[in-house]
């Protein structure tokens, strides 16, 4: 799995949780999910569940706390799927 394919899938997962005024084209690696993309913090757990389903992985609670940016999230997926 390449970084680019993970990123594409991740953007698809994130898209429905973006506020109406945030365009999905604004989602880039350095963006912070809550501070930049304005995603309701309550929805981070839903994004994590969607990621788990999509990539067939388990993400522990302490790892969720490290998934601040899009880049962090891609790294977690790549790390878990490589294992």
């Amino acid at each position, binding site marked *: 799995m390449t970084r680019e394919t993970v990123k594409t899938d991740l953007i698809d997962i994130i*898209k*429905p*949780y*973006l506020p*109406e005024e945030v365009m999905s084209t604004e989602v880039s690696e350095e963006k912070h999910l809550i501070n930049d993309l304005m995603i309701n913090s*309550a*929805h*981070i*757990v*839903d994004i994590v*569940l969607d990621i788990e*389903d999509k990539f067939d992985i388990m993400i522990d609670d302490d790892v969720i706390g490290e998934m601040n940016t899009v880049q962090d999230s891609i790294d977690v997926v790549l790390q878990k799927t490589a294992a």
Partner: protein
Amino acid sequence: MEKHRVVITGLGVVAANAIGVDNYEKALREGKSGIKYWEELNNINLKCQIGGAPDLDSINLSDYLPRLHAEKITNKGIIYAMLSGVEAWKDAGLEPNTEETDYDSGMIFGAGDLSFDSFINRDFPAYPIDNGDSRRLGSRTISECMNSGGAAYLNNILGLGNRVLSNSSACITGSEAVLMGYEYLSQGRADRMICGSTEGDGRYIWAAFDAMRVLCSNSNDNPEFGSRPMSDSSAGFVPSGGSGALDLETLESDKARGAKIYGEVLGGHVNSGGQRQGGTMTAANPHAVQDCIKRAVKAAGIDPKEIDLINGHLTSTKGDPAEIRNWVAALGRSGEDFPMINTPKSMIGHAVAGAGSVELVASVLQLHKNFVHPNLNVENIHPEILSEIFGGCIPTSCQDKEISTIIKANFGFGDLNCALVLRKYKE
């Protein structure tokens, strides 16, 4: 204290036979049934295998709702509430508040049971908690199961800042919400209130009714014939889901905006039979039903003779003749003097807590557009009904008729009653 007049300025509806007010009016006039056979109910051994579910596949949710709501909410009761509430708000000529909170507007939007079927459309087993997998519940389980979930998600879209309340009173939930909104506005405590109710549909809630043996189980091979209120062969109600919403507004607020008026709420009453004097958890105390209707008429300040149309509760059960007897006794009108009477339930089944509001939208449309929709499937009127009223009072085809005054009632589990009087608006 000055009492404010309250008018209806917007409508929204999601029903088993139509989504949207224009489609609903057409379906009511045509006598279109939304009742279908459901193989999945057969597979799980329900005796009643028919029901009415609004056809969400016929619309593109993202045309009507924000992205998150359209793509992620799975609870049908909440989806219906958002659709009907947003439609009513926009029909009243209003737009959702984007940045500011609107403290002049509020909402009374009730629900019956949002949790039974909350998980039904999700892609994991129904109740993951007992499998030790509660983390799968995610962030939306509470907000989709809580009884105020319909109102909460609807207000997430609308941004209203006056009273936002979710009542829950079984089958009277919708008419009670409208009555409470009327009372609140008549006191001048807000300019407008979105009032309505919702009920989802699915095998869990329907199975629980099926277990009570109150559903129609003899029409699985002829689903559109299943719901037949006032018929001599009524054999139980046909379950369904849906949501109706009415934008109520003080006359002053309506005039200031120059908004249209569908009709006026003159008054109403809500009461309980106390589960005494023949009333039980599931049966109505007839004294209380009559008291409720009489007080509603009195509160509206009308003479019962002025009533042109009764929109009854009439579930297609053995309770229908008793309901007619109560109307006759409460209004003091019988035989050929009895008003026309109908209910959309022959087309859409019984939407439980959604019923009152979905049916009130039908009442308002008939008042505003001067027609009386048909009752389907009344091949033979129940003899106990014919001994009270003239058979011609029960229309079986759509009739054009000047309608000035309608009385609408619902009766619910817990021995609850609610009646409302609506009138065509005059200066």
